[in-house]
C-alpha cells in the first residue's frame, strides 16, 4: 500500500516502513540504542531525502525509546540519577556539537568527516566490545559460578563529588558521567544519532555500570536528547514528516517492547557481543562504501544557500 509523505514529497510502501520501524525498534529495546545509525541510512536507501530522514528519525527514536524505557521502569532497571547526570551533560554536548558541526560545514567536506567519524568510532567501540564480551563468555563457560564482577579500581574512583547511584550499585564521582554525557552529546550532534551505541559501551566500560541497568538508563537519556533534536529540526528546517514518523513509530514502539523482553532472556555478555557484532557490521558497511567505487559517481542535493 503506497502512501504519500507530505514533507518528504515521495511515495513509499507503508508496510515497508512498518517493518523497518519494527526491526529497528527490537534492536532499540534489546540494546538501549536509539537505532538512528541503522535507520537513517535505510531511509536514504528507500528514497527519503536525507534532511527529512535525519529529522524524522529523531522523532521516531523518541517514541521507541519511550516505549522501551517504560518496560525497563517496570523492572526497576533504570538509574534515574545517573540518567539525569548523563542527560545534563548530553544537552550541553549537543549544543556544543551543533556549533562544531556548523563550523565544520563552513570548511566544507562535512559529509566525509561524519562518515569517517562513524567508521572510526563504530570500529573502535565494536572491536573493543567484541573482544571484551568474547572473553567474558569464555570465562563464564569455564567456571560455572556467577559471572565475575568487573571492578575498576583506579583514577576514576579517586575523583571528587562522589555520590551514590543506588540502582547501579555504584559510589562514583559525578564528573565521569557528566563528561561522558557531554562527549556523547557532541558526537550525537555531529553524527545525527541518539548516541546510544556510544553511550552503552561508555556506561559499561568507563563507568562500570552493570549491563542490565545500562540499557534502560541509556534509553532514558536518549529520549530527551532526541526530543530536543526533533524540535530543533521542526522549527528551523521544517523537515520532520509526521506521516513518515507515525508509520515508523508504530512498528518501532511495538518492536521496542518485544526487544526489551528478548533482552531479559539474554545473559549480559551475550547482549554485549550481539551489540558488538551489529556495530561492527555497520562499520564495515560504511568503510566498504568509502573504499569501493560507487555505481553512480554523481549525486544531487539541495542547492547551498549563498
Amino acid at each position, binding site marked *: 500500500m503506497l502512501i504519500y509523505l507530505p514533507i518528504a514529497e515521495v511515495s513509499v510502501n507503508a508496510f515497508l516502513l512498518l517493518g523497518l520501524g519494527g526491526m529497528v525498534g527490537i534492536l532499540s529495546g534489546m540494546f538501549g540504542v536509539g537505532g538512528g545509525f541503522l535507520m537513517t541510512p535505510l531511509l536514504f536507501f528507500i528514497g527519503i531525502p536525507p534532511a527529512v530522514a535525519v529529522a524524522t528519525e529523531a522523532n521516531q527514536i*523518541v517514541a521507541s525509546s519511550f516505549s522501551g524505557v517504560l518496560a525497563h521502569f517496570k523492572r526497576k532497571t533504570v538509574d534515574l540519577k545517573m540518567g539525569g547526570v548523563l542527560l545534563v551533560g548530553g544537552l550541553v554536548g549537543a549544543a556544543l556539537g551543533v556549533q562544531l558541526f556548523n563550523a565544520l560545514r563552513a570548511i566544507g567536506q562535512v*559529509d566525509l568527516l561524519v562518515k569517517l567519524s562513524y567508521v572510526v568510532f563504530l570500529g573502535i567501540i565494536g572491536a573493543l566490545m567484541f573482544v571484551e564480551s568474547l572473553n567474558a563468555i569464555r570465562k563464564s563457560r569455564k567456571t560455572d559460578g556467577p559471572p565475575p564482577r568487573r571492578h575498576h579500581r583506579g583514577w576514576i574512583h579517586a575523583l571528587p563529588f562522589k555520590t551514590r547511584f543506588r540502582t547501579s550499585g555504584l559510589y562514583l564521582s559525578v564528573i565521569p558521567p557528566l563528561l561522558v554525557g557531554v562527549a556523547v552529546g557532541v558526537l550525537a550532534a555531529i553524527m545525527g544519532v541518539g548516541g546510544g551505541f556510544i553511550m552503552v559501551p561508555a556506561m559499561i566500560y568507563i563507568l562500570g555500570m552493570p549491563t542490565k541497568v545500562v540499557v534502560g538508563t541509556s534509553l532514558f537519556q536518549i529520549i530527551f536528547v532526541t526530543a530536543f533534536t526533533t*524540535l530543533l529540526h521542526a522549527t528551523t528546517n*521544517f523537515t520532520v514528516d509526521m506521516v513518515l514518523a507515525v508509520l515508523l513509530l508504530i512498528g518501532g514502539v511495538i518492536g521496542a517492547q518485544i526487544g526489551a523482553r528478548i533482552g531479559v532472556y539474554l545473559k549480559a555478555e551475550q547482549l554485549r557481543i550481539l551489540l558488538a557484532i551489529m556495530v561492527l557490521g555497520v562499520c564495515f558497511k560504511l568503510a566498504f562504501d568509502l573504499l569501493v567505487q560507487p555505481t553512480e559517481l*554523481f549525486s544531487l542535493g539541495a542547492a547551498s544557500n549563498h
Partner: protein
Amino acid sequence: MLIAPQAAAAQQESIVAGLSQNTVSITANFNGSEILIFGAVQRDAPAPEEPLEVIVTIEGPDQALTVRRLDRNYGIWMNVEAVEVDAAPTFYAVATTAPFDQVITSTEDLRYRISIPRAIRAVGTGSDRPGDFTDAVIRIRTDAGLYQMLENSVNLRSETLFDTSIALPANLVEGDYLARIFLTRGREVVTSFETEIEVAKVGLERLIYNLAHDRPLVYGLLSLFIAIVAGWSASAVFRYIRSN
C-alpha cells in the same frame, strides 16, 4: 478565390487542446497520475504537403540543485567537485510523433527549450567539465522516472487530431506544471499552445504540510506528543497481554 502563393504569410494554423485533468490532487495514497493531452489543429486552408509533427511537453516546477562528483583521494571516495545548477525541472516529459531529430531542428529546440538538456538552466562555472554534471542530472532523474523522453508516442490522425498520455510519477512536487504543445513542419515550429496543470496536496496531506511550515513549534510538539502517546500505548498493551 485568390490562391495564396506558397511563399506568402505562414499558414494560419492554431491548436485547440484539452487535458484529461487540470488539477492533480495529491492524496494520502497518491500513486501517480496519467494525464491525457488531446486536441485538434484548426486551419482555414487545406493542410500543406509537408507532414505535420507534434511535440507535447509537461514541465514541473524548477529547483536549484548542487551536483557533486565523487573521486578517489587517499584511497577513499569523496566529493571532490560541486557545481551549482540554477534551475532544473523536478519533472520533465517530452512526447513526439516521430524520433526527436526528425521533428525539430537544434536551433528551434534551443529557442523554445524543448529537449531535456535545454530545460536545465545555467549550470554554474566551477568545473572544467560542466557537461558531465548536466548529464549526471539527466541520467539520475531519467532513472528515477522524473525525466521522460517519449518518442513516437503522440498519435496524429489526418494531420488534424492528436493525443498522447503522459504518466506523472508518485514522487511529485507541488506547483504549477506547464504543458506545452508545439506543431512543427519541416522541423520548424509553426505554432504552439500552453496550459497549466495544478499539482497540490489536499486534505490531511495539505493540513500537515501547512502546519509544519506555518506553526513549526506546535507541529514539533505535536509530533513529540504523538511519539510519547504511542510509546506509552504500546507499553500498556503489552502489559495487558502479559497479565492475561
